[in-house]
């Protein structure tokens, strides 16, 4: 990453057209007084890149390097191991339930918040954000207090032979909690910015509420929706703290992929732990790529609307 080329020089002198670049941030008109000397520029870029390389690139590369350190055979064996496969299935199940639930919530909450004015809207927005500021361990703890043996419903659940914590339902509930705000957070600001003129026009033309939602609103926010789903899914599949509390760590039954990684790592099976970790790291990379695509699409449609 040493190929630091050049910067600060006037890229578009034509001050009349502000959208020379997709992101018109960098100096449309650069005077010397408005730019830093070349050596300052190069030093700042260099320091920033070294910092990011040390903290982001090296850890990411090391995941894949360690995963393949003992060869492709060990890598493959770790992935097709029976416990790993069952952990993968449970992870997919937890994500497969929590993402659609939070998707429906996100659309409903965004519709209410963006299309209507009502008292207590700011309070609602703060409450939607609440799970972000609750530590994952505490998110697990609250479900222990409600459904655990000493919890509110503990005795009733035991009498009816139902298991929620230390079983799959608890894992799903904890995952739903920690991924709760993701889709709503992506949709609400965008739908607020888009206003309600298009929906009102559709209404005047005789469309029903569901028709407006399917034909007007959702197509307008499809990229934010997709990104919200991707982000929610990444967090759902990667959640560790909350799931760790409620899982009970029963191998082959209540272990998700992140918990399986912990077991392998604590067992000194480093190559296997990193092999499973490389699956989740790959998912993270896919998330980042999709995010970049979504942002570009959003910028493109924003620019289109301006013209």
């Amino acid at each position, binding site marked *: *990453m040493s190929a*630091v*080329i*050049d*910067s*600060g020089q006037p890229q578009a002198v034509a001050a009349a057209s502000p959208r020379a670049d997709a*992101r018109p941030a*960098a100096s449309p008109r650069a005077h010397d007084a408005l730019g830093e000397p070349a050596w300052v520029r190069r030093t700042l870029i260099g320091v*920033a890149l070294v910092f*990011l390389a040390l*903290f*982001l*690139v*090296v*850890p990411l590369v*090391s*995941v894949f390097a*360690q995963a393949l350190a003992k060869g492709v055979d060990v890598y493959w064996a770790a992935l097709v191991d029976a416990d790993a496969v069952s952990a993968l299935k449970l992870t997919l199940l937890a994500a497969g339930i929590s993402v659609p639930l939070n998707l429906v*919530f996100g659309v*409903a909450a965004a*519709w209410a918040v963006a*299309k*209507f004015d*009502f008292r207590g809207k700011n309070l*609602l927005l703060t*409450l939607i954000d*609440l799970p972000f500021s*609750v*530590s*994952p*361990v*505490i998110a697990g*703890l*609250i*479900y*222990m*207090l409600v459904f655990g043996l*000493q919890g*509110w419903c503990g005795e009733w659940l035991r009498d009816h032979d139902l298991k929620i914590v230390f079983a799959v339902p608890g894992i799903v509930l904890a995952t*739903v909690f920690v991924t*709760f705000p993701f889709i709503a957070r992506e949709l609400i600001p965008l739908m607020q910015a888009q206003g309600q003129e298009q929906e009102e026009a559709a209404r005047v033309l005789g469309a029903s*509420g569901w028709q*407006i939602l399917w034909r007007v609103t959702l197509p307008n926010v499809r990229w934010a929706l997709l990104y919200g789903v991707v*982000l929610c899914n990444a967090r759902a*599949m*990667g959640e*560790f703290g909350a799931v*760790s509390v409620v899982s009970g760590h029963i191998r082959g039954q209540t272990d998700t*992929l*992140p918990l399986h*990684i*912990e077991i392998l*790592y604590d067992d000194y099976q*480093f190559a296997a732990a990193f092999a499973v*970790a490389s699956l*989740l790291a790959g998912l*993270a990379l896919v998330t980042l*790529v999709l*995010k*970049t695509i979504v942002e570009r699409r959003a910028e493109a449609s924003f620019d289109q609307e301006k013209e």
Partner: protein
Amino acid sequence: MSTRALLLRRHSVLPGFGLSLGFALLYLCFVVLVPLSAVFLKAFTVSWGTFVATVTSPRVVASYRLTFGASLVAALVNGVSGLLVAWVLVRYRFAGRRVVDALVDLPFALPTAVAGIALTTLYASNGWIGRWLPFKVAYAPLGVFVALTFIGLPFVVRTVQPVLEDLQRELEEAAATLGASRLQTFARVIFPALMPALLTGFALAFARALGEYGSVIFIAGNMPMVSEITSLLIITKLEQYDYTGATAIAVVMLVAAFALLLLINLLQAWARRRQGR
């Protein structure tokens, strides 16, 4: 519909207010509010004396010191490096800028357990980075700081970046015209404009670090009184079936988190006013 009676709403021709808000509130209550209230209700069953004794016992206090201290230092480092990264990404053009920009979000997307084992292996005494360092990072308090710096990295960049992009160049031109040096312009014009966003990012990174668990437990070594974070202590209590003790500590951490949430909301309101001007 009862929500309509409860909440005053301005007239709108669009349908679905009751349904969407009703569903959102119901879901919010069941998934978030009711379980969360369990913590506080459980805490109320504990006598005040027991509560204070639990949350001020030496091992717990040592864990606060480590958690809050390491979070604070990590957030400070993120404040400085985040400002630098945001500046470089917005103001300069260089090869691979787009890739670097996308990569900043990696700590958001990478599961904490993966980050935890990767950082531990790197900073262990025989690791890629650890072998070059004369002091111990993994399995020591310093490791907690490294993990918290990693997970807090995107917050400051992502809050400062949009403000820096929207910053009017005219202000800098005016400062230059009036004879300010570049450094003076940065210190007197640019930095004050970025301040609310910088503080918000700092508070977000700090809040995230306080509650972090997954990435830290691998690298910390988890020695009581030395390198044990508060989240781990909650889990330890739970594993000993000491639900009351776990709840008491959780309440302390929740109150700290909510105080920070309030502070962040105030900071963002301040930032909006500053930008609106």
